[in-house]
């Protein structure tokens, strides 16, 4: 219920010299640490994050090498003297290796999609709420429009068109190179372009909630006396927005950012699972799950391998969001 919140104001009372005081972020950190599930989630995410960062070091096999062992070898199978920790998939690729690379790709996509969406939403929301007038009515019309269309089907159809023909989206070369280097993608084929397309589409549909939230926050903050005072002191609009309005609207945005990470992650997984997003051989948890469910009747353990990371990551982001909500604004406690 972050939308109904009133932001914490900065402590303005002068602090007595010598008296011990706790900064606002220290309080938040202390409260966050008390949320046990959020701390466990943070730990779990750190493990996944580090594992994906070290993917090229940890992975025992090349990403796309097929026929390493008989198809669907169960976990802890040793074949040709090499251990397959999580077994092999339907064409004999090493599950553990692919899971690591997939984590890197899926997490990067969620990170970029959620971050870009939040930044764009924040900017537009702040401008609309602060300046009102034309900017506001344009942004509001777009928000209304996006609210009254079924966004998931439209996201699917746009992704399906763009992902099957990524060259139709003009993507700057350096973006492709950077994403390719980050997610260890091969420069041949359209692997890199597909990943960028997914990020672009998820961003395009994801900025709405951040913009609405930011606009609401700014509308309530801009009428406050301290903004009036700042303006009387001669501060420019840019300074007022960046130094006073944005920090005050920050707490609910941090929560919504965490939740939008979870949203982007499940959206990407769903797209790839449905065969519309990133396609084999590029591994993502979603398309690994798709293949796994096809062979579920004969090898029921297979879907658990890509399925568990998805649900762990999704729940972890949710728990962290919950912890942050409690820590940032105790009045919002569920």
């Amino acid at each position: 219920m972050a939308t109904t919140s009133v932001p914490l104001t900065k402590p303005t009372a002068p602090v007595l010299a010598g008296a011990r005081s706790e900064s606002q972020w220290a309080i938040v950190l202390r409260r966050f640490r008390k949320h046990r599930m959020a701390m466990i989630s943070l730990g779990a995410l750190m493990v996944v994050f580090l594992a994906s960062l070290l993917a090229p070091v940890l992975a025992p096999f090349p990403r796309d090498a097929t026929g390493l062992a008989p198809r669907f070898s169960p976990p802890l199978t040793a074949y040709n003297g090499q251990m397959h920790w999580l077994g092999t998939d339907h064409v004999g690729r090493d599950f553990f290796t692919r899971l690591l690379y997939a984590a890197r790709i899926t997490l990067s996509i969620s990170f970029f999609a959620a971050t870009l969406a939040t930044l764009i939403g924040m900017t537009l929301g702040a401008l609309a709420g602060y300046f009102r007038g034309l900017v506001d009515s344009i942004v509001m019309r777009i928000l209304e429009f996006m609210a009254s269309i079924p966004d998931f089907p439209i996201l699917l159809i746009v992704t399906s068109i763009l992902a099957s023909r990524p060259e139709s989206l003009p993507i700057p070369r350096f973006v492709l190179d950077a994403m390719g280097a980050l997610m260890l993608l091969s420069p041949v084929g359209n692997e890199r372009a597909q990943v960028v397309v997914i990020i672009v589409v998820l961003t395009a549909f994801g900025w709405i909630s951040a913009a609405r939230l930011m606009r609401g926050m700014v509308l309530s903050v801009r009428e406050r006396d301290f903004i009036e005072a700042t303006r009387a002191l001669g501060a420019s609009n840019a300074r007022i927005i960046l130094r006073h309005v944005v920090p005050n609207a920050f707490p609910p945005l941090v929560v919504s950012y965490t939740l939008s990470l979870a949203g982007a992650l499940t959206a990407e997984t769903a797209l790839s699972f449905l065969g519309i997003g990133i396609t084999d051989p590029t591994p993502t948890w979603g398309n690994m799950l798709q293949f796994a469910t096809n062979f579920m009747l004969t090898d029921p353990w297979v879907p658990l391998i890509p399925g568990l990371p998805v649900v762990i990551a999704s729940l972890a982001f949710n728990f962290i969001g919950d912890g942050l909500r409690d820590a940032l604004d105790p009045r919002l406690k569920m």
Partner: protein
Amino acid sequence: MANYLVRRFILVFVMAFVVSLASFVLLYSAPGGPLEQLVALQSTTRRPDPDEIERIMKRYDLDLNLFVRYLRWLTGHPRGPIVIGGQEVFGDLQVGCLKEGQARLVYPDGRVVEINCAKPVFLRDLAERPTGNGVIRLDFGRSQQLAREQPVIELIESRLGNTLLLMGLSTFFAIALSIPIGIYSAVKQYSRFDYFFTTLTFFGSGMPTLFTGVMGILVFALLFQRLGLPYLPAGLVESNRDAVVPLLGTIKAGSFADRLWHLILPVAVLTFFNLAGWTRFIRSSMLEVLRQDYVRTARAKGVVERLVILKHALRNALIPFVTLLAGVLPTLFGGAIITESVFNWSGIGRLFINALVASDYPVAIAYVLISTFLTLIGFILSDVLYTVVDPRIRLS
């Protein structure tokens, strides 16, 4: 109110127009159109046959200019020259071009015009070709891939029953369960019951249906079957052959019991997911209302607690719930895309995904258009319902 509704309906039509225009552009810029497929098919064996290409272009209106094509797609018109009082007008208005090049047109009155088109198409020529009824009369054209040449609307009709059944049941159960659970959680805030359901709903909304669906199949279909327990089917709408289930006996393929048996798992997965969100919603809205002065007043004047909760509090707590229900309308039609895919449920959502994977864009566009329209109607409905349940709200 009337004023509001008129404005809202105008907005719906503007939105529908924008979405239809966008859909049309998508439809024809999408990869894998009929012509492209034909060329791809032929280039592997022989060179593309010009006659065949022309036939396809005529068949799908690809030779017409974009505006005329959009009009024909949307309304089914123009179908030929406009006839006023037995007199043909605009019969030789050029509306398209079948083949690029140069041509010289000689009119009966002796005029000679040079045009940049080797085979121009005139309004008169449209009378010869088959024309649909247009999207506004629910004619979305024919499927190009999934079921060749079958009208899209027939495809949708054949799947609609399955989706309505699945979505209707799960929505019903979710509402029927979330209201009492939400109320009880709010009334007994921080009780064991409340903690249990708050945690459960947290997991329910944090776990994608993709995962709960797959886990459901793993446990209740595969594991139970192996353990010799009464298991549930792993997917599909009905069995292909009779199944013998422990304790339940033989379930005949296609019987009522069989269909019911197949419904349990997908309905449960969807109910769980919706239940999570809605219970939280009712709980927090109930908590908000219970803090209000009029609830305290009711208690102070000695109203029985049960009446305070059910009459004074609940009625007000349910007001925001109406907005949530507005979102239900499009999903009743559109189905749950992911759940239907996980369970191989032959419904509308799965039809949409199959259409996208097979690049059958007429089917996909029809789905999006109908969903959009229902979403818009849902918004109007929720606004009107708001005034019904809460007389304080006036639409203006």
